[in-house]
């Protein structure tokens, strides 16, 4: 076998000799190659779902604001300044003058207004993907090329948070695709070369393979130092890490925990920062659920929380690259996370005491009996969550110790959601599940997933509480940021007490970069992200 390897080595060297290594001339220029194991599902913002797609749009389309270097506050982007009036119901943005789209046509506030109005108009049709971002907007105007005026029904509390995710599209391209009552917005493939106006233009895209970006010469902001970058898709982490080690790529946006040591040993710069992902143990909290209603008892939930060994999960599943999670809004969101909450202690004795106190006696097999039936439950685990199996294997014996039997029911993500929301999005049947969430910096989205309105949508816990819903609507419409923050903290505490989720681990964002490059900035959303264009504009060769 070795001889064969040698022969092939000769061949391979010949082939690899012309590999895409960046030129070694100076610190400017070059092509930066990023490896990703998630991928871009579509180039159309009205269709795309994957994080990588949104990060792509971040670099290709103009956006009013972006996050600053702390990833907590907003900084000017296409909008250089803004002000509110009419008690927060009108927002006026002043945009960059003399900007151009990559095809030479002028980029003005009119494009922004058109995009907003189109999304509002087709919010329940073709533009549904973006509907959340234009909530409460009645209309947008562009009285002159550098002024955008947005009118709201009521004054929202998260305007900038929403606009930070809002991609302005070129009217002259997209207005041709609003036929069939806006449905055509979704069928436009938006193939490269994409008409955009960011620091880069997307010049090549092959699904599941590659997305190549070239520096945009006509960009109106800080020009990047590199010539081009590419996102190369891998179907598994192993291939990706191998490629990084072999220098076929220069960076990996999400390094699996097991690869960290090897990469560090091979001389790569591995950065580990608190992330926005959290794994969770879900307890069906639908007050109308049919069976096993003891799981609605807050004391039972509390007992369960004390049977969770977060340290073990963090050590085995994440190899230490995670923190114990405890709130629906993770600490990496900055001030939005309630700092007064703490993860519950891992205390089997306490859990047992609580359950004993509820009168759930153990049977001869050690399983407690509650309301005439055994405390034996199925835990639905989606196969798409790679940590679910090992997490379950850690939970199962610990729950046995408190007299609760857990059985794993693995389903693919679609089937899992169907089973959890059954029947017909009423969440009447299931008991427990394991899943994960990826939060945003602005807490609005995560707080929305446990509202009654998200039944059949994002809700996986069946949680529905009018009091909570009222708080949610209120925070959305509280322009005063301090007041909003206080409310957001209150909501987290409320959910902490009502426990639709027992939060498990908040895993870090771990990225690796070849030592030949500098300036690839890691954030809670990874280095190639939807928060700002910082990473790829500061990046340069050493």
């Amino acid at each position, binding site marked *: 076998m070795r001889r064969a390897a040698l022969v092939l080595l000769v061949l391979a060297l010949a082939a690899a000799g012309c590999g895409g290594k960046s030129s070694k001339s100076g610190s400017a220029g070059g092509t930066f190659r990023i490896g990703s194991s998630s991928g871009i599902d579509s180039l159309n913002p009205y269709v795309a779902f994957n994080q990588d797609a949104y990060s792509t749009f971040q670099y290709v389309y103009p956006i009013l604001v972006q996050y600053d270097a702390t990833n907590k506050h907003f900084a000017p982007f296409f909008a250089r300044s803004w002000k509110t009036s009419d008690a927060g119901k009108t927002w006026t943005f002043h945009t960059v003058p003399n900007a151009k789209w990559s095809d030479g046509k002028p980029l003005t506030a009119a494009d922004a207004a058109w995009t907003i109005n189109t999304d509002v108009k087709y919010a329940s049709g073709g533009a549904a993907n973006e509907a959340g971002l234009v909530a409460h907007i009645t209309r947008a105007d562009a009285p002159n090329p550098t002024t955008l005026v947005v009118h709201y029904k009521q004054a929202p509390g998260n305007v900038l948070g929403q606009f930070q995710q809002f991609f302005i599209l070129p009217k002259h391209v997209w207005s041709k695709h609003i036929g069939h009552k806006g449905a055509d917005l979704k069928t436009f493939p938006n193939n490269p070369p994409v008409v955009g106006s960011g620091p880069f233009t997307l010049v090549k895209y092959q699904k599941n393979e590659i997305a190549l970006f070239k520096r945009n010469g006509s960009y109106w902001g800080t020009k990047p130092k590199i010539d081009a970058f590419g996102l190369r898709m891998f179907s*598994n*982490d*192993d*291939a*990706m*890490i*191998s490629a990084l*080690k072999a220098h076929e790529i220069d960076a990996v946006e999400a390094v*699996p*925990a*097991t*690869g960290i*040591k*090897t990469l560090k040993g091979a001389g790569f710069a591995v950065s580990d920062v608190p992330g926005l992902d959290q794994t969770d143990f879900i307890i069906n909290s639908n007050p109308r659920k049919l069976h096993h209603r003891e799981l609605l008892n807050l004391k039972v939930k509390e007992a369960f929380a004390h049977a969770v060994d977060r340290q073990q999960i963090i050590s*085995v599943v994440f*190899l230490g690259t995670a923190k114990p999670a405890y709130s629906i809004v993770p600490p990496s969101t900055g001030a939005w996370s309630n700092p007064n909450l703490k993860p519950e202690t891992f205390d089997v004795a306490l859990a047992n005491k609580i359950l004993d106190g509820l009168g759930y006696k153990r049977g001869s097999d050690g399983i407690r009996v509650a309301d005439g039936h055994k405390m034996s439950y199925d835990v639905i*685990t989606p*196969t798409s969550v*790679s940590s*679910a*199996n*090992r997490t*379950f*294997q850690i939970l199962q*014996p610990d729950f046995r110790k408190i007299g609760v039997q857990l*059985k*794993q*029911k*693995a*389903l*693919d993500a*679609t*089937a899992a959601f169907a089973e959890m929301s059954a029947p017909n999005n009423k969440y009447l049947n299931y008991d427990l599940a394991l899943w994960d969430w990826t939060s945003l910096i602005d807490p609005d989205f995560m707080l929305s997933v446990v509202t009654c309105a998200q039944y059949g949508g994002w809700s996986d816990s069946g949680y529905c509480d009018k009091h909570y819903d009222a708080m949610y609507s209120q925070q959305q419409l509280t322009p005063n940021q301090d007041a909003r923050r206080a409310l957001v903290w209150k909501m987290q505490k409320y959910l902490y007490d009502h426990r639709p989720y027992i939060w498990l681990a908040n895993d870090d964002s771990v990225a690796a970069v070849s030592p030949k490059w500098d300036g690839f900035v890691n954030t809670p959303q990874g280095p190639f992200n939807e928060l700002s264009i910082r990473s790829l504009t500061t990046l340069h060769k050493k």
Partner: protein
Amino acid sequence: MSVVLQEPVLQEAPIRSRRGIVLETIRRRPSAAIGATLLVLVLLGAVLAPVLAPYDLHKQVGPVFGHPSWSHPLGLDDGGIDMVTLLMWGARISLVVGFAATLVSMLIGGTVGVAAGYFGGKTDTILMRITDYFLVIPDVPLMIIVAAIWGPSLFHIVIVIGILLWTSTARVIRAQVKSVRERVYVKRAQAIGAGHARIVLRHVLPQVAPLLIANTVLTIAVAIFDETALSFLGLGDPSRISLGKVIENAFQRAAISTGAWWAIVPPGALVALIILSCSLIGQALEDALNPRLRVAHLSARRFRLRPLVGRGSEAL
């Protein structure tokens, strides 16, 4: 059924006595003997796993992907569990799936084959059409879908694999039954007025049984392969550790790029060994039992690739 052709008739006398088959087979095919020995060893290891396994299957005994050492000759997996223990228990599940799926497949295939071969005529035509239909189903996509629909429990996996494997058995059995049916004593039995069931049970089945056994062994190999493939695609039963699952776990956690080859090489090697042993034994048995298989081969132009040890779309 199989692509494998045994020795041309000219050079070997066919084996008449069933008792002599085993000895004859070993004599002529030492590889089969080795295969049998290996398989027995693996079976022993698997069956005795609860007693022989050095460590607890669920207990973490060291760091994730711990290196091989004296106390852990094959290192640790991605959960810090001893690999030797995993291999023993994993072989258990893999073999169970293999046997169970084969049982399902044998039952269906055997019944269909006997019915088609014995009754002939319209029954035969209809059954063969159904068999042909199953032959053209793309199997891996079907397995994926069914695992997705029903959920990946061990039971479902067994049924799915069994449903896809019965066709080759049916074919082989049908051919054999057809030839047996023409034999004198069967006709005599019919003349006397013996019922179908009696004839099948007393005269046809005994003649078919040896071939069925050979086919069974080969099917086990395919079933084990299929289970490994399903596990690799994330559709295996996550609450049971099969050898396929061990490979998949390691793969999911980037074992190779981490350098933890011991988490991937041994389980796959063990699977290959099991499959190889089954193939050698099954092939040798077939050769020995049915010299006329050669003719059957030439006319079985609609065989699948799978029969030998299950290639076809799973291989890809």
